[in-house]
């Protein structure tokens, strides 16, 4: 007989071979759960290889989702449920599983061969070794049961086994009272053209679902919908949100979007996404390399489009020279860096925040470029929108920093109406003549003339220019003045920032936890708990990193200590130390993984303590 329990929060980790369709199962569970009104946060974690060797630990692909009836800000560190499709998946993740948690293991994945591939003792099945007290163990021979379920279908064993993920997913759906329809719809459209495969997946899913009933003394869990802010929601992935933000901004600015990119993990999906939306007047250009990508974007901006390029660390390193050119040209340009583990090729599929100083300083000469960062999957939309606004209204390149974690992560999003998005004003030249390319308005922004405009023909380039005419000038005083003007015009942008708002915590206190980018969620949970424990701690998260907000100085001065958690070796800490004299303590994690809230909470405790 089946028991029922309620939960306010559950973290499930799906793990299996790269070939096992774990990412698909994970994203389906996410969509379904989102549609059931839970708040959630996900973290896909896959190997650098396309399909790392079968059965090996290196080849394990994982997907963790944390969902609940309460607010969720991180994918959670220790899952309540582990779905292990094979021994390697078990070996890699079992130590994280909460004591007393649910372990769903695919028996067939623990045979001698799989144990060997996972470099485990072949003579003992680790599942036999577990103390039943430690976990709620469900040993299911998914492979066999699934094959039975697909009996009679015109499919080879290989093809049949491909739907094992659906069987497992079905079982988890049952366990957590999930609704099958969204996935059924998804399958029908995905396998439109392959009716037999479709049938197989549907059967597998349903069979897994109903399998639950056949087990006795099993507990099912209910996780009510979350009391989120009223409104209409959707589920969103970071790179998708970023692409949408670019589209929205270009539309609001009345500019055609020209996107040039060279594929690189984890930025490629932005190219893929935009390429599917040409009906918004978007032109996508797959360039021969990152240098061609940014220079083509510059060319497009010169032609009157909104030039955008996206890449990751190694690609950024190649764009430095062209960024300098865009600084000289003073044309709108958005440069996106979806950061990954470095240095060099580093850890291509892992997340990191180590390209911040490169973004701020990685060019020859005095070449200031605004730098802003996205803090969550859905925030990628607003960050992209703000980056574009600054680029267009200030005629400047802007660097937008995201990272692998939020780029691939998903969360529910109370999305905005396009009508509510602020308008973006393009500083076109209004006159008919006397155009001086580098004459500036009160914000030191030059006005924009496009090729094709009669009588306003002009030339621009990368050599130093005479103050207003923009003609080449080697005059010493002019050079110094131009360097100062380029610095000044960027610093003026800070005047437009909204006043800084603490995310939570008192106006003054012992510790200010200052963050940027994807650490937002983990910091939020940590600070919430710290406050609950009665600590005098607040949270401030930066959207704009260069130039810093004018009011940052005051906020910092309201706290004894500023704690800066970063997924790098202390880069924002350096920038803060360089600008402000406050007591800075850095909390650095450089493991290619996001922070766990507990790691930050612990540190807050220490800092608050001393």
């Amino acid at each position, binding site marked *: 007989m089946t028991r029922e329990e309620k939960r306010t929060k559950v973290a499930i980790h799906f793990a299996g071979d790269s070939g096992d369709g774990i990412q698909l199962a994970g994203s389906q569970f996410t969509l379904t759960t989102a549609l059931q009104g839970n708040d959630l946060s996900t973290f896909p974690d896959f190997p650098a290889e396309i399909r790392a060797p079968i059965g090996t630990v290196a080849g394990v692909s994982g997907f963790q989702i944390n969902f609940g009836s309460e607010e969720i800000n991180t994918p959670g560190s220790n899952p309540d449920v582990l779905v292990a499709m094979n021994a390697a998946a078990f070996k890699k993740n079992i130590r994280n599983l909460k004591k007393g948690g649910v372990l769903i293991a695919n028996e067939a994945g623990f045979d001698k061969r799989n144990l060997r591939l996972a470099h485990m003792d072949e003579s003992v099945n680790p599942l036999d070794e577990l103390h039943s007290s430690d976990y709620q163990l469900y040993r299911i021979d998914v492979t066999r049961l699934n094959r039975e379920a697909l009996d009679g279908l015109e499919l080879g064993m290989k093809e049949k086994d491909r739907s094992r993920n659906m069987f497992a997913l079905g079982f988890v759906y049952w366990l957590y009272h999930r609704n099958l329809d969204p996935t059924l719809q998804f399958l029908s459209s995905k396998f439109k053209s392959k009716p037999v495969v479709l049938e197989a997946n549907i059967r597998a899913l349903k069979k897994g679902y109903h399998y639950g009933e056949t087990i006795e003394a099993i507990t099912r869990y209910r996780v009510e919908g979350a009391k989120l802010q*009223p409104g209409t929601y959707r589920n969103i992935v970071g790179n998708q949100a970023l692409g949408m933000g670019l589209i929205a901004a270009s539309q609001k600015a009345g500019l055609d979007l020209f996107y040039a990119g060279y594929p690189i993990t984890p930025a490629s999906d932005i190219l893929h996404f935009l390429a599917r939306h*040409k009906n918004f007047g978007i032109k996508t250009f797959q360039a021969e390399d990152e*240098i061609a990508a940014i220079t083509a974007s510059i060319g497009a901006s010169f032609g009157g489009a909104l030039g955008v390029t996206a890449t990751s660390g190694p690609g950024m390193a190649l764009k430095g020279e062209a960024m300098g050119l865009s600084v000289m040209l003073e044309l709108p340009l958005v440069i996106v860096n979806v950061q990954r583990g470095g240095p060099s090729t580093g850890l291509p599929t892992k997340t990191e925040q180590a390209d911040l100083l490169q973004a701020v300083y990685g060019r020859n000469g005095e070449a200031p470029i605004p730098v802003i960062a996205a803090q969550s999957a859905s925030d990628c939309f607003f960050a992209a929108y703000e980056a574009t606004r600054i680029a267009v209204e200030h005629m400047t390149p802007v660097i937008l920093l995201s990272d692998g974690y939020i780029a691939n992560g998903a969360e529910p999003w109370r999305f905005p109406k*396009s009508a509510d998005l602020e308008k973006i004003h393009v500083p076109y030249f209004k006159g008919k003549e006397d155009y001086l390319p580098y004459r500036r308005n009160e914000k030191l922004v030059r006005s924009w003339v496009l090729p094709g405009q009669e009588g306003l023909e002009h030339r621009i380039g990368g050599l130093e220019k005479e103050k207003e005419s923009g003609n080449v000038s080697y005059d010493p005083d002019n050079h110094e003045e131009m360097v100062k003007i380029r610095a000044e015009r960027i610093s003026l942008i800070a005047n437009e920032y909204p006043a800084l708002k603490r995310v939570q915590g008192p106006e003054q206190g012992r510790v200010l936890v200052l963050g940027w980018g994807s650490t937002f969620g983990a910091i939020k949970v940590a600070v919430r708990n710290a406050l609950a424990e009665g600590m005098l701690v607040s949270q401030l998260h930066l959207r704009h990193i260069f130039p810093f907000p004018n009011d940052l100085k005051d906020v910092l001065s309201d706290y004894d200590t500023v704690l800066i958690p970063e997924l790098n070796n202390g880069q924002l800490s350096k920038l803060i130390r360089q600008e402000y004299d406050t007591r800075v303590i850095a909390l650095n994690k450089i493991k290619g993984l996001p922070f766990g809230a507990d790691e930050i909470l612990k540190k807050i405790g220490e800092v608050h303590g001393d």
Partner: protein
Amino acid sequence: METNGTAYTAKDFSSDQDVRWCPGCGDYSILKQMQTVLPELGINRKDLVFISGIGCSSRFPYYMNSYGMHSIHGRAPAVASGLKAANPDLSVWIITGDGDGLSIGGNHLIHALRRNLDVNILLFNNEIYGLTKGQYSPTSELGKYTKSSPLGSIDHPFNPLALALGAEATFVARTVDRDPIHLREVLKRAHQHKGTSYVEIYQNCNVFNDGAFELWTDKRQKGAHSLILEQGKPLVYDGGKKGLRLDGIRPQIVDMDNDYSESDLWVHDEKDSVKAHILSRFFDKDPTPETFPRPFGILYSEDRFTYETAMQNQMDKALDLQGKGDLDDLISGKNTWTVE
């Protein structure tokens, strides 16, 4: 892109900037011929854009009264590709040098050629790095003595036209700074070609590589060494004294005075890629009686769809398939839920 009746003169295309090339530099003549031929091309000045990289030659855009960008070293083809793709109505001219276009910029150049946007690439080949004061370039001859090759260059040079043909170019031509009429004619043809026109222009750097092209510019010698290509015409040169014929796949120099008549000769066909290939390989440096003459004119031209047309077609197709994009639909997506 056509002029709305505006009748231009060469003067209309010269900017107010004083030209800063060395006295005697071949770049002057190219600039002059460009300004002279433009009125005939019927391009509205407002739609005219010159994009260059870095080098002496790349100063060109500053001297043209048109839109222009002096970009960074080697990247002009990429900049121009973005520009042309963003606004296909513009007449885009890429100005590059043998270092800018074939050394640091070689990759952008070959990719531009295969993509075939409707732009014109003018490669000013002086077989030297001028602006950096005289190092050998990818087109400098073997054994060349320069600042960076005091014992002579050991780099086997590129054959700029053979490279372009290998890179899927649809229009490949050669001309020279000292022959204004030919230069203008080739520029005109380059403009008329729909697709990427690649024009190598022999340009004398009188400071660091003076006389590099004397064989083909010197009154006394050029006749015997230059082969002027004309579509549909037999290949004769040296004032009609010499001709070229094909013996199977082997080109042959023949004396016209005796045994051969024009009807025996190889007739130029710029649509023939094999012939173009053979012509592009007439490339020996030091002349012997057997040396083939250096061809000038249009070696090859092919009709192929342009990149920007294909891009536009896809935009239209996307509209048909998906309908005009609606921002709110995009943002909300198909699966939403509401919290009261």
